[in-house]
């Protein structure tokens, strides 16, 4: 298993645990968070856990672009990891407090940065995995 995949899976497991803890916390009557925590734990589970596991495993299992012996990890995979996780962390620490600090310019900038980081992560992942999703016929056609 490549190092970057291990990082994706371990980060995914952390988000999985945090997501279920937060979902449990949101149900406690004395917390009274309303719907503030709902988008946070849903994104922890769907983006932090499921998507991150899919990204990590696909980087590991999908056919490689270049069949080199060292099985080098692409810069794009590491970029995806750091962009996605920094975007998610910024989001998770800011989103629940939006109703209280929404007018603050710093908070608005953090939210915009988080959104851009997440889109950038998806773009780098697609750039990495799209050429690796190909059929035998096409590969033969290219090499011929």
């Amino acid at each position, binding site marked *: 298993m490549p190092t970057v995949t291990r990082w994706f899976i371990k980060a995914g497991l952390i988000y999985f645990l945090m997501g279920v803890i937060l979902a449990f916390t949101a149900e406690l009557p004395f917390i009274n968070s309303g719907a503030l925590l709902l988008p946070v734990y849903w994104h922890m589970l769907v983006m932090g856990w499921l998507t991150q596991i899919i990204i990590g495993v696909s980087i590991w299992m999908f056919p490689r672009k270049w069949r080199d012996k060292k099985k080098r990890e692409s810069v794009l995979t590491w970029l995806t990891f750091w962009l996605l996780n920094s975007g998610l962390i910024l989001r998770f620490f800011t989103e629940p407090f939006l109703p209280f600090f929404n007018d603050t310019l710093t908070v608005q900038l953090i939210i915009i940065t988080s959104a851009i980081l997440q889109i950038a992560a998806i773009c780098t992942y697609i750039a990495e995995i799209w050429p690796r999703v190909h*059929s035998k016929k096409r590969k033969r056609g290219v090499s011929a």
Partner: protein
Amino acid sequence: MMPTLSVWILRLSLVYLFITAISGSVLLIHKSIPLHPAAWSLLPIHFEMAIWGWLVQFVMGTAYWMFPRYLTGPKRGNEIFAVISVVLLNTGILLLISAPFISPDNAIKAISRLVIVVSVALFSASLWNRVLSYRRVPH
């Protein structure tokens, strides 16, 4: 090697992932800096595409590619069932996200859910016999 159908399914799921990320980012920014009153209408598009278009479809494409293949006959069984199920799934998703803009009642939404049910049933049927261990298959 990856079958052509899986290539299509996986690439479609990546397109949905991209649209999901864009719509999600617009919604996130809209929570902090109001962009447009209609921005919240992206919410159903965002989560339906994330669940059905990205997650479910990516898993379907990978399962169709990686599950054990038949030792005789077509390697992945009758491809027609899988093709129809993918066409139905994507028809269902597109109907589901366009339903609020086509009709205010729930009729189109219900039809799109039914289309997805038929798609999942067909896909499960086509994959059912590939859930096995080669150790139990007489060679």
